């Protein structure tokens, strides 16, 4: 099942480039290190190449081309990303599947949504159609964007709506990067809420990653002194690919299938009110230390479970006091209640890992049936040099705290109409803002009542 990636805006394009590069690195890993027999390795490599890349069967010597469409309002980033791909020598972007204009969007969501979006629409849809025709089996779309800027968020939101019109039955998975709380763009909160409200209506699921958390991971776990966007992008890609790289899903007892986007979506987002997904993975450590560490599934899963319950972003600084079953005086759960979880295990001895702790019905909302609680996926092939790694994609309350905070700040700015004229200039009216606030407040309320 092929996945077509839409890289929108500067952030989206950089993450996309890094993602395909990581995939290629994974594919070209030394077969000895994969810990699986060679035919399994072959199967895995073919899966990755057919899902994310397109190889023209006729010309044998051609490099695999990423199934990606790139959109940006400035030519710089796209050019840089394409060149990086070519330099690697192992893959490249397909010709003529990039759209770039000359002048950017100036971090203005309205500029992106109302002006650039409609102009770029036809061309982008055509490019996507071309990609879709090359797929035998279109599994879904993966959109990469950030929430703070103007292009990724504004143009991205518009393009996603057009994509939904064009492909009403396809699965659309959006990955958004939440800006730093002390971010440099003043109107980032406006951009964030406008984008999220529009996306919520059209896509199937939104994977939320927060720059603050990613930054902490880089500094505390990976021990990187000077953190650049490249490092953060690497972390993002590691998380994304832990879920999306080929693996086997144990859907029902005795029935397995491959982890296509459709299967993941079916499990994670059954109710359209709850679309926010977050990812936690373990372990994460600097490359130099990996070969000197060894892990046990038991320990990894215990930490991961506590990360879920206590809503910790990484395996350091977890609050071990939070326990399932504690209730607040008014009867609500103190821990992080989930709607659905998808646990993907990769590496040695995956079949010995015991995941029953994640199936505890107390972790989930009362109306979630046992079959809908935990979806387990396994892949014996080692991923990204970690002998054992686990990633948890969960539909739970964790993004709500951040969302609440952002909406609050945006509302404060809006009530004094700060910077709103910049948006009005390009065609956005106050009602659009109010609509967005209402949508997001509803989402927050829904999740709080889980």
């Amino acid at each position, binding site marked *: 099942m092929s996945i077509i990636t839409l890289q929108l805006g500067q952030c989206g394009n950089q993450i996309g480039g890094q993602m395909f590069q990581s995939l290629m690195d994974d594919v070209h890993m030394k077969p000895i290190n994969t810990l699986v027999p060679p035919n399994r390795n072959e199967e895995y490599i073919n899966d990755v190449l057919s899902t994310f890349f397109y190889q023209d069967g006729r010309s044998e010597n051609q490099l695999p081309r990423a199934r990606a469409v790139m959109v940006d309002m400035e030519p710089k980033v796209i050019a840089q990303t394409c060149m990086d791909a070519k330099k690697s020598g192992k893959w490249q972007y397909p010709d003529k599947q990039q759209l770039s204009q000359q002048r950017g969007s100036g971090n203005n969501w309205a500029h992106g949504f109302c002006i650039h979006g409609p102009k770029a629409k036809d061309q982008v849809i055509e490019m996507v159609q071309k990609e879709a025709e090359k797929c035998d089996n279109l599994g879904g779309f993966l959109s990469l964007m950030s929430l703070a800027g103007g292009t990724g968020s504004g143009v991205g939101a518009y393009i996603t709506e057009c994509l939904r019109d064009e492909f009403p*039955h396809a699965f659309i998975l959006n990955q958004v990067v939440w800006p730093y709380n002390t971010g440099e763009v003043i109107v980032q909160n406006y951009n964030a809420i406008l984008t999220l409200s529009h996306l919520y209506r059209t896509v199937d699921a939104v994977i939320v990653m927060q720059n603050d958390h990613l930054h902490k991971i880089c500094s505390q776990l990976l021990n990187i002194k000077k953190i650049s966007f490249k490092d953060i992008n690497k972390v993002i890609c590691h998380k994304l690919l832990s879920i999306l790289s080929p693996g086997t899903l144990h859907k029902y007892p*005795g*029935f397995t299938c491959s982890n296509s986007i*459709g299967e993941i979506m079916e499990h994670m987002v059954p*109710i359209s009110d709850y679309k926010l997904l977050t990812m936690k993975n373990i372990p994460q450590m600097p490359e130099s230390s990996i070969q000197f560490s060894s892990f046990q599934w038991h320990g990894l899963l215990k930490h991961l479970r506590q990360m879920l319950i206590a809503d910790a972003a990484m395996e350091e600084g977890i609050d071990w006091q939070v326990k399932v079953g504690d209730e607040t005086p008014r009867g609500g759960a103190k821990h992080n209640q989930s709607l659905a979880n998808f646990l993907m295990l990769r590496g040695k001895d995956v079949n010995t890992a015991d995941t029953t702790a994640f199936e505890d019905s107390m972790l989930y*909302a*009362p109306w979630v*049936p*046992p*079959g809908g609680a935990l979806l387990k996926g396994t892949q014996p092939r080692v991923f990204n040099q970690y002998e054992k790694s686990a990633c948890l994609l969960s539909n739970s309350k964790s993004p709500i705290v951040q969302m609440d905070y952002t909406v609050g700040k945006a509302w404060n700015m809006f009530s004094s109409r700060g910077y709103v004229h910049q948006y009005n200039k390009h065609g956005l009216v106050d009602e659009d803002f109010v609509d967005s606030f209402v949508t997001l407040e509803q989402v927050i309320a829904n999740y709080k009542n889980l």
Partner: protein
Amino acid sequence: MAQVRETIELLVKVLRENGTSKIKAESFRLAKFNNDTATETFWSLLFELLYFCKYGTIDEVAFKAKAELSIEELVVYVKQEMQRKGFLSREFASLPNDMSSGSREILLGFAWLLCKEGLIDKFMESCSSPLDEEDPSFMFEFEFEDMAKPSKQMQTQRVLSPGQKVQHLRLLNGKLRSNIRQLQALQREKTKLQNRVHDSTYGVSLNPERNHLSVMEVHLLKHPELMKKILKLLEKDNERLQNMLSWKDQEEVFWKWMESVLDHKLKDKVEDMSPGRMTFYNIPPDAVVKMESAKQQLEDAIMKYEQIIEEIEEIWESKRSSISERELDNLLSSINTEISLQRANLALDSTEDILRNQKETRFLLTKNNSKKLSNLSSHISSHVTPQEQSLPAVDIEQELALMERQLERIELETNRKREKYRSQLENLASTVPEAICIQPMSCR
């Protein structure tokens, strides 16, 4: 006699091969003599054949249905279906619902169905060649026994409040929708791949109607060891078709035998007329009322139109007798003079006159009722100022016809004049030395 038996055996074989349940030739003979033991077999045979007519195949659903329906339900269903197809035999409809007797009637019904629906032809059509299959999945051996049973997994253990129940249902609904979307994607993929197979084998074909190989044929090319299986299937099909063809040859015998069954029935009918049996007819309850009202309406209409028709006939008769040959001739000549007069009138008109006549005219669109026209024109003239009152209103249809005629005339005139001037020009050109006359483009 032996021939009849053979034919019936053949028929039984054909039926059996096409999916009906076991039936013996003996049952046919018993049914001829209205023996009660054969009744049940024939009811079930009829049921299966009716199912085949409706759905094109006799499959497990039919057998399951037969097992689950009670005897009465099955009998009523068969009666209903047969009536729907047009088999309105009273005796058939009054057969007892517990399958106790009446096998001859059912045999007659079966023969009627066989003939009317052309069952043998339908059987032949349903014999499709396995090589034409686009879906080779029936060649694979699947293990379906231990497949998942997800239904238990989706039930909640705890007792839920109504709001939570709604959420639970929404969750199940969402999962179903996602599954449907995934199925749609798989369907698209299947079509795409089939197309690819067809495209890549363009030009090669085993079947004269197609221009490419089917997916099944390609699959067999890749896995020649499956040929044996296909061969067996083809042989079975062949046998089936062979039997049906020989049935076609021997049909006559069967139908003659059926005639003898009818004879038996008529003979017995005189002897046995038991009144008071319940007849089943599939008539809707208000049909009688509807039929009564329809009859009444028809009678009224006939009364009304009858009178008018009589009057018209009288007039026709009177006219026919009164008018003589002479008067017909006079009529014809007067019409001819009228036409020639009109023609003369038109010829005298010149184009200048036409142009001059373009005054202010008021047009009216009315139906062919002269009275209305004059009324209207008087009405309009009363509202119009004195200067414009000079012209009466004109019927637009007439004006249009008039203008069309004038247009035709102008065209004729123009053509004639054009010819005249062209010949004049050419004559002139020939007299002037060293000159050529070249017509302008638009005239050619």
